[in-house]
């Protein structure tokens, strides 16, 4: 039977291989292979040369020497700054994911339970900002949150505070910016999940005397688990490496690994240290990424 199957497959036009091959090769070359190179460079030493790192292998006297420099990793573990930056990133990512979930869930719920005609309109309104420049939306907050910005002016005008409250360049501004930028990515998968729920389950629950809140806790919430996972991963993983928001809205107290990596690369021109920072970040994120991919694959299979 299997042989017959293979024969039939062989009869299929060669187009099949092209269809698989083109995107496969592209992603292999430009997405997967670079990770191998980044691991390699993380074992090199910074050098004043072009490119600014030493080669791992050398050929002299008929001997191939492979020099793996663990110095970068030792540096990362010894310098408290890097550890603090990793922990800071994880902390900020965790709490902003939680905030997005708390704000995004009711929004997704409201859209999923609204008129069928109105759903695409609400969804478009939520999603449209993600198609417009993130940089500009973050920039808009700079004008609002600054010491002489709109928010402080309004607060002072209302007499709530006497002098401007420092919000810009603090972690509060970073949280506002992250929730603002990533909220749509939480709402979309949650909506996609909530809209598929069978409402007759809720009716049955209410017929049996369950309060609507109880029904929500016992039925809707557990059923929306995969939507919550997808949304949370879509927020958590990129936020760990976020650069633009902490750079523009955060201050000296904001330690995030994306910012540190950027400084190592662009300001210190230390490519190997930047690479090892990226490798460790990848190791931290590999489990969430696999979780996300699994969840995504299951959704794609249609469960």
């Amino acid at each position, binding site marked *: 039977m299997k042989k017959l199957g293979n024969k039939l497959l062989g009869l299929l036009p060669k187009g099949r291989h092209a269809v698989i091959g083109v995107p496969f090769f592209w992603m292999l070359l430009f997405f997967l292979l670079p990770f191998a190179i980044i691991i390699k460079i993380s074992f090199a030493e910074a050098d004043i040369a072009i490119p600014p790192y030493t080669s791992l292998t050398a050929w002299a006297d008929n001997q191939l020497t492979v020099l793996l420099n663990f110095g970068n990793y030792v540096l990362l573990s010894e310098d408290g700054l890097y550890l603090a930056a990793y922990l800071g990133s994880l902390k900020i990512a965790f709490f902003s994911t939680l905030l997005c979930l708390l704000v995004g869930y009711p929004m997704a719920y409201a859209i999923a339970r609204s008129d069928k005609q109105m759903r695409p309109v609400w969804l478009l309104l939520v999603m449209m900002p993600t198609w417009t420049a993130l940089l500009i939306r973050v920039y808009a907050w700079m004008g609002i949150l600054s010491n002489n910005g709109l928010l402080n002016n309004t607060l002072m005008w209302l007499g709530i505070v006497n002098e401007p409250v420092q919000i810009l360049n603090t972690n509060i501004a970073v949280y506002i910016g992250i929730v603002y930028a990533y*909220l749509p990515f939480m709402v979309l998968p949650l909506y996609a999940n909530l809209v598929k729920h069978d409402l007759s389950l809720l009716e049955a629950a209410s017929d049996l005397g369950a309060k609507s809140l109880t029904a929500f806790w016992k039925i809707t919430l557990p059923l929306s688990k995969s939507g919550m996972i997808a949304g949370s991963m879509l927020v958590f993983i990129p936020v760990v490496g976020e650069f633009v928001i902490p750079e523009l809205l955060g201050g000296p107290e904001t330690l995030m690994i994306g910012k540190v990596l950027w400084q190592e690369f662009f300001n210190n021109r230390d490519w190997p240290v930047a690479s090892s920072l990226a490798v460790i970040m990848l190791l931290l994120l590999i489990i969430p990424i696999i979780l996300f991919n699994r969840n995504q694959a299951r959704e794609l299979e249609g469960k």
Partner: protein
Amino acid sequence: MTSFRFSRFMLFAGLTFIYLPMLILVIYSFNASRLVTVWGGWSTKWYAGLLDNTQLMNAVLRSLEIASYTAIAATALGTLAALVLTRIGQFKGRTLFGGMVTAPLVMPEVITGLSLLLLFVAMAQLIGWPMERGVVTIWIAHTTFCTAYVSVVVSARLREIDRSMEEAAMDLGAKPWKVFFLITLPMIAPSLAAGAMMSFALSLDDLVLASFVSGPGSTTLPMEIFSAVRMGVKPEINAIASLILLFISVITFLLWFFTRRAEEKRKKALHKFKTYKG
């Protein structure tokens, strides 16, 4: 339904939260005062000033160019990837393929940017290409990450559509490519348009990837804006930012409007066809 009323309220509050800052930005772009936080009356002088800023205008043109190339390439690649994921069953490396297609959605940009730069540097050493980093390398970076978005949008659509027409055409002996171009493609066209639009917008917006893989003399618009913004809020930036917001919003709305109309027409036609058959 108290829970529904609460969620309704949250929806409106959330939308206000999303749109209010953008509205404020647009209003302040018409502020005559150079002090961006003090209102000094209405003026359009910052918009007029933009045209004289050749550096900024060059960056705008360069960004639009890259975004167009990206939209085309990412739509083609993403559609192929979506076809592979939904229409071609098992093959060796399918899990790997699925992972590679969805991972760029969440991968932090600093990682992708740095790793792609290192790839380009290694390639330049090894095969002598790319000798110079610029539009082409930025285009490759953007295409790689936009392909993921397109494939998610298109494969959702591919899974949704009724496959009976494809199967009927196959049964009648149409070649797979013919089935794709004559039957599948018209049905998924709205999602292709959405994917292209998304890629265009994402490419136009990207700062991190472009900063890593660009070379001297290939500054994109977000890079220009970023270096200006770092120094604080500036009225010229308010103006260019408002223009970008307007541009993207109008295109998004038009796209949405037309795909929706096409969709309704198609549904009606299909309905007619089905009732006729039944």
